[in-house]
């Protein structure tokens, strides 16, 4: 009755060839894998890595945009930004819960973020020096996130797929809002237009890097594709993003900081697409490895919040404990 591959108390699986084949057959039949289903350890590990990195990105991503809440130029913009940053926090919470279904606690994941062991999207290690950065982030960063996440709505792991459906709705609202903000800057005074172009210049390349290394250099892609955790390669998604975004920039009179950007009729099986310049992968790896302008500030801000809040969390526990004792005594 203890079938092979069933998760034991220690969540270990016996991965016989038969078990792996049966698992792959479920994936191929587009069945959703649920928390209590048997799964290969590597599948579990890959998902924990992906979901927790995604959750951390939402949380760290609150900082660069949060940087402008108190300085937002109008009350309408202030309210929209507050709501957006709050949404990102909600995504983080939701994703930590999805990760917990795989047997890791939020506490544990938080520690990994604070000690620098866990990764989060490198894009958030770039600074937001101007108000236009808020538009650029919504338009480009949320835009790139959607390209990545829409296919994840069909991810083979049920809880992640379901989380993504909800998250994607909000991300596409953020993307439209960011583009609308950029549009109003682009239609504004010369100073505003310059601010918008400068933000685009700074965010364009980092947002292309958000899709990760080229397929030839990506260490995780093949197996994730076979398990239908991922549905498209990094380069495919990046191309989709470029093709969708370049016309949006043109529409509002902004230009991408890429001299090699040209329309290529023959791309995408004859449907056409943009050729674009070479991504500076040295910069990408430099930031991934912790040497971007804001890496240390981001982690230090999260650590400070965590450390400064320790007494609050302790007090909440102590109070709950007292309440329990009072109930028991009553």
């Amino acid at each position: 009755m203890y079938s092979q591959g069933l998760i034991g108390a220690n969540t270990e699986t016996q991965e016989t060839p038969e078990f792996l084949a049966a698992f792959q057959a479920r994936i191929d039949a587009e069945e959703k894998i649920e928390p209590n289903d048997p799964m290969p350890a590597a599948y579990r590990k890959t998902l924990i890595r992906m979901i927790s990195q995604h959750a951390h990105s939402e949380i760290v991503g609150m900082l660069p945009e949060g940087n402008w809440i108190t300085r937002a130029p109008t009350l309408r913009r202030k309210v929209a930004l507050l709501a957006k940053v709050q949404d990102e926090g909600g995504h983080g919470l939701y994703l930590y819960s999805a990760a917990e279904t795989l047997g890791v606690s939020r506490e544990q994941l938080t520690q990994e973020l604070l000690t620098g062991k866990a990764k989060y999207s490198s894009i958030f290690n770039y600074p937001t020096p101007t108000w236009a950065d808020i538009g650029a982030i919504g338009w480009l960063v949320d835009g790139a996130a959607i390209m990545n996440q829409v296919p994840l709505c069909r991810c083979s792991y049920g809880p992640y797929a379901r989380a993504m459906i909800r998250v994607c709705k909000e991300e596409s609202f953020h993307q439209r809002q960011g583009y609308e903000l950029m549009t109003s800057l682009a239609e504004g005074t010369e100073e505003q237009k310059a601010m918008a172009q400068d933000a685009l210049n700074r965010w364009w390349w980092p947002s292309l890097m958000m899709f990760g290394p080229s397929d030839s250099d990506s260490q995780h892609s093949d197996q994730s594709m076979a398990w239908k955790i991922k549905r498209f390669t990094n380069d495919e998604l990046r191309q989709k993003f470029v093709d969708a975004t370049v016309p949006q920039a043109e529409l509002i009179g902004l230009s991408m900081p890429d001299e090699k950007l040209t329309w290529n009729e023959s791309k995408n099986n004859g449907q056409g697409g943009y050729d674009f310049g070479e991504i500076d992968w040295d910069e990408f790896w430099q930031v991934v490895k912790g040497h971007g302008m804001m890496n240390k500030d981001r982690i230090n801000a999260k650590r400070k919040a965590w450390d400064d809040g320790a007494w609050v969390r302790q007090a909440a526990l102590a109070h709950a404990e007292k309440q329990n004792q009072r109930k028991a005594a009553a």
Partner: protein
Amino acid sequence: MTEHKDHLKVALLQVADDHLILGHRLSEWCGHAPMLEEDLSMPNMALDLIGQARHLYTYAAELEGLQRSEDDLAYLRTDREYTNCLLVERGNIDFAHTMLKQLYFAAYMKPFWQFVEGCSDNTLSAIAGKAVKEISYHIRHAGEWVIRLGDGTDESAERMHLAVETLHPYTEELFWIDEHRKICIDAGLLPAADVVRPQWDATISAVFEQAKLAIPEVTYPLLGGREGKHTEAFGYLLAELQYMQRAYPGAQW
């Protein structure tokens, strides 16, 4: 009626400024809260407050009749023209101070809005109807934290005690009534102190009892904001708030 308009405008600006400035302080926490749940709750309350401020500024501008917008009122006045009470502009200091400040304010606003909801001014009554639901949540949320912290660990109790000592002297200004507000009270548009005060006292006493906190005697209340006399920290708050509007005059955002 013209007269009421002018006085009501002045009185509503006081309330609008309270909401904007307290919302501003709360929003400073965003991303830096003691736990993720509070990283969601504090911006949520800030959203409520700034949303209320927008309604109030818009209505005050309408009463004024000078074609000023909500943003003109929120962003383009001098420090002496803001008439929020001092309580709401005080720095966050720590989570205990922040939650206590929130409780003091919400405990005042709930009976305020409950009264206004029933007043004869339809615009005001509609604003109040929405606000009263939101503010009840603020009382509950902040009140629960004051209780947890007051009756938590030694450290949290000490911090809570300190917050009460620091902030209680500012609460008197919540009940400040000037000639403008007096006229609105007489017209039945805004509540008199004896409508609001007993409920405020009851809310604070109930929370403090569970939080094991004593209500201090205040001999020297700290006042000034309603007359545009602010603390030093307020100038820095305005510098942040107004930065974009001052740096790019006349631009649309």
